[in-house]
């Protein structure tokens, strides 16, 4: 295991409430690295599925057999989902920007293309904005939305990741979904 994974493992095992904060950039980096690695391995034209990336990040850090040192899946998945959200939002912003401007320059873009089945990038940004309003009122709703929406996890996976029951996730998601629907004007 490299230093990077080591550090993630340590943070996941720690009780320090700031651990989650420190975890995020590491996992963010990890997901991007994984995505790049996948792109390097598989020829261009590939798209990457968020769920697969998050799961793979987990497998890579924890190992297929599970790491005896810790079992705090929740931290990991919450952080990974947030990281995935940022990656997707960055990507959507970048796409939007590209459409409107630029100019001939020599740029080195560090692009990672992740597939999202969103109607459009604009919608993705709108969803994120609506979720920010929700986050102020309800942090757990945010975590659930990240996992369900941005990481593409099922209710069961979300429940496992957050250590809550499936019916709870279902109820919360019902609220989040209808909330988004009322804000965006269509069903997700």
């Amino acid at each position, binding site marked *: 295991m490299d230093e990077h994974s080591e550090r993630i493992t340590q943070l996941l095992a720690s009780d320090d409430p700031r651990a989650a904060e420190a975890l995020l950039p590491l996992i963010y980096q990890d997901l991007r690295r994984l995505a790049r690695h996948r792109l390097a391995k598989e*020829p*261009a034209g590939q798209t990457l*599925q968020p769920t697969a990336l998050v799961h793979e990040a987990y*497998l890579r850090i924890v190992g*297929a057999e599970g790491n005896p040192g810790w079992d705090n899946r929740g931290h990991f998945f919450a952080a990974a989902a947030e990281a995935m959200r940022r990656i997707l939002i960055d990507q959507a912003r970048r796409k939007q920007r590209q459409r409107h401007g*630029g100019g001939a320059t020599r740029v080195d*873009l560090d692009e990672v293309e992740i597939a999202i089945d969103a109607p459009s990038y604009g919608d993705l940004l709108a969803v994120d904005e609506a979720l920010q309003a929700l986050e102020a009122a309800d942090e757990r709703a945010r975590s659930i939305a990240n996992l369900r929406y941005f990481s593409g996890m099922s209710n069961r996976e979300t429940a496992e990741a957050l250590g809550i029951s499936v019916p709870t996730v279902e109820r919360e998601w019902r609220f989040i979904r209808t909330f988004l629907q*009322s804000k965006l004007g269509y069903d997700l």
Partner: protein
Amino acid sequence: MTPEQLRRVKELFLAASDRDLEHRSGWLDELPGEAPEVVEQVRLQLQALEDAPADLGTPEFALRERLPERIGPYRVEHRIGAGGMGVVYLCSQERPVRRSVAVKRIRAGMDSDALLRRFHFEQQVLADLEHPAIAQVYDAGVDDDGRPYFAMEHVEGTPLTGYCDHGRLDTDSRLRLFVQVCRGVQHAHHRGVVHRDLKPQNILVVEVDGVPRPKIIDFGIAKSIDRERVACVGPMTLHGEVLGTPEYMAPEQFSRHAVADTRSDQFSLGVLLYELLTGSLPVSSDRSRSRTLGTVQAAPAEDAPLRPSIVVSTRDGSAEAAERRRLDRRALTQRLRGDLDWVTMRAVERTPERRYGSVGELADDLERHLDHQPVLAGPPSTRYRVAKFVQRNRGTVVAGGGVLVALLGGLVAFAVENARARDFAALAARRERQAVDARDEFARQNRILRGRAYASRVLELAELARDGRLKSLGDRGNFHSSLDVLDSEFRGMEWDWLAALSSPPPVWRRPFDEPVIDADLSPDAGELLLVLETPEGAVPVRTGNGPDATLRPIPTRARFARFCPDGEGVLTAGHPAEGVTYWSEGPDGWTETRRCETPGPVTAMARIPGSDRLLIACGAEGQLRSLDPRDLLLVADHGSCGATAVCLAVDDRERVLAGRDDTVVQIRDLGDPASCREIDAREIVLPQNFHFGKAVECVAFTSDSKAAIAGLSGGDVGVWSLEDGRLMRVLEPHQTIWSTDWSVNSLVVDPAGRWVVTSGRDGLLRVQSLEGFGTLALRSGGKIYTSYGGSDLLLAADRLGQGASSTGLAGVLRLADLPIPMELVGHERGESSSDDAIAVTKDGKTAYTVAQDDSFRMWELRTGRQLAAWRDTALAPQALALHPSDNELLVVGRAGYGYLLDAETFDIERTVHMPPATLGRQAPGRAESGPLSVAYASDGRSFAVGFGTTSVLRDPEVATPIVVFDHATLAVLHVLEGCRGTVWEVAFHPTRNLLAAEYLTSSRIFDLDSDDPAPGVEVQGANKQACAFHPRTGILYGASQRELFRCDPLDGSVLSTVSESLVTDVLVIGFDTAGDRLLAVSPRHFSLLNADTGDVVWLQKAEGNRFDSGALLPGGGGVLVGGWSWLLYPMAGAGDAFEERATVYRAARFIRDDLDGGWDKAAALERLGARVDLADDVRDVVLEILGGMRVVEDPPGSGTTNSGR
């Protein structure tokens, strides 16, 4: 709304949503003192819940699609279903006919022009499929959001298995339905379309006038959407899950190197047949669902399906299954035993080669069975054939039998009359004769069929060889396997030829009776050391560099042998010997001069280049020690590296890499024993391979010592940065789908640092680019164990065969002789933007490219170095053209303008604006893709810009513009609107002022000197996909899906066909300056043709890359292709071999098509004589093949001159 209010909303909403629908709103109204906006929000959300009450508890991706109003020209009625690739809607079509159609809209993610274009090609192929058993694909297109869709015949039917079971169809009826399905699949296969996802849900039965008719839906869709991906990485997701329906998928479809072909469809049909007959699947769902890359290949024997009759007689629930077939269990068992067992089992063979040659053959065999003819799948025992004969001639035989019974009765009851006795004898004799006739007839037919199968297969293999595909076939390790299973009865010279083709091109090579398990090349490359694995143990042998040099065995047993840097001695070590021994060679043989003891045998050794230090690992603890190789004194002890399996690599900074058996590579600084960093190579191993793939088998530093390369026991190879431990690259693994005997045996880096050579137990030697895509794989025929690179020589040693019968091979090849392409590294996302994505100067020194990363670049072709690059996301450059003077470069982009650059400095000098009229035509909602193709007139006075469009299906009336500019003033000379659809290519006539344009579905020629050049002359011949004027004659060459034509440049009529069959799916064609050679680029390969004769002189497969565009270097120095990566293929060495292959190919085709499988030598010679059109060289090869062919007189398999093993 404040956070508090929002929390209240949530509370109320959840409380309300738990109530019954009818009580909700009342309850909400009765709540006292709530803020109105809170109540309103709750009401809104409750409304939303009512609209879509379904909870998204399914693990599908969270975002759902809105129900679209329209998709393309179709009005959406409702959603029918959703599958892995997209959602299916029932839609209504109004024009040109009113009807219901099923529209399948594909998920997002296909937005590149190149992909869309291929999608259109595919659609045309699908539209060609017309068969009663195939649901017609009417149309395909791209909707407003850029998502592709297919419009198909809407079939309201019942899945095949359900239909049969529900209607309690008997076995014969089921077979007849099934045969109809096969015929449909066969029809598609003949047109080159593979279904890839055949399963009951995709075969619907519709009753037409009470007669059931099967309809196959979704034909070719899986392939057209997914083929790029699948062809490259197989149907595996990141998790090793399988896309598709595992129960019905052929084993080869699970492979990383999936080669789904017609035989995979046949397998799926076999599974379906199995299910129709027995009611159960050959492999249980659980098991097939759990199939993944590793497990499928390692599938144990018990995974082999049971014969249908056995399943029915043993499995629970078979009684009901039998009942649904209007039989009892015993009768069903009887019904299936024999023919149907054999046919089914042959169709579901794990190895594609052992299945039927085609779906047609499967259907034929079933029809034979239905007609009581012998089936080919069965074992041809006399009893079986006679039984069939009796069934077929039931009337006659029963009559005979009746007489017989009467006679027997007569014998017992009465005295036998002589006359009657004679009758009896005559009858018996007749029966016997008939039986013999039947047997002979069967043997004859069977032989013809087997001969045909052999010829077909040989031809396929010859075709592959001719296509230059042997490299990639070698990748999959199956070329030899394919040859091995060919009927030995028919093998002849052509078989030997193919066997020879699949071997590497050595400088020399030499076979040994024993396997070679280690090898080393002396510093001056004049001598080599080999270790031979004899029955008495491993014997080191020294010999000269050449195939005939004398072997000088060293009198010891040791696993390793290395030259001492003093140039005199030889060092041996390793099991069973302990320690390291220094041997000197004198006139009387070998003397043991020195010896150094070690704790346990040496497990690995490595030398620091240019340094007097030998590093060894020894003992159970993997102790690392440095020795002086001359006197074998201990220089330093570096401690234990903690593992038993070690391999070492040493760089010039005296750092060592040590691989362990747990995927860890250690980096140690020899000067500082405390320093030890670790790289975990785990990330390149698929989780399911981890248990056997984790030992590090070999390691190497890259030549700049900045990265480490490690090969693992699972065949995976990766490159890691030594600075931050980051995984830099994953190289092609040494894994085959044919065995699980994977491992990387050795790896060496070429001194220039561009290539790494790996060898593996899969028998391949791979030369892989450390930076990009260029990969060459050479097949050794065996299992390469060791290779060593000194200067550009490569020593390769093999173990051939298995166990006691294995032998060895060692040889030296020269890296420079291998046809390795050079990669131009620079474009981040390498795909070229359009057909006009490459321009090369006339001196062949400089190239310009444009790719989808919005950049355009300049390259020095001699070195592959990037000279300059621009990126412009605003312009989104798509195409470029070089002024004939080579002084200026024109680049145009999607944004609707372009630049003229100084071709030498790459400075932007002028901006080219498209006339507002053309841009103004881009009505709102029309997704124009802007200028997409450019060309300069040969006098350089003008240039043409063709536009792309994606709106052809929605807006059929509007033609796409081509604008012709004056080069000097940039004034617009013409705006041509000849045709609708994207203008993929424009080309100027070399002498006249004619402009050819290739649109999506047709090609036109415009006479720019005429008063009204538009709309131009339509070029004849179906569906042009590429066009170019011959630089000398001015004749227009056009490529359609399957053919290359010559056309008259004035009236567009077809003059002649250049080449048939082999050159398919062409995207771009181009000529060299003299017009002798024609380059045709297709996504999967490019071919170089003789422009006069149409003979393919070189066919290069994309080898995991994909080609989008290409150019022939003017001096004939090579071919530059753009795609996922940009590669310059050197031309040298390609010519002769391919000419030779082409000859043999033609001969093989003559034998298959013209000799009609008769395998009668005399008749064949006669027919050969009648064919005056055959070239002499082809005739010679045919004669040679016929001469070498084992014809009927020869005993089977005798005198085979080359077994290849």
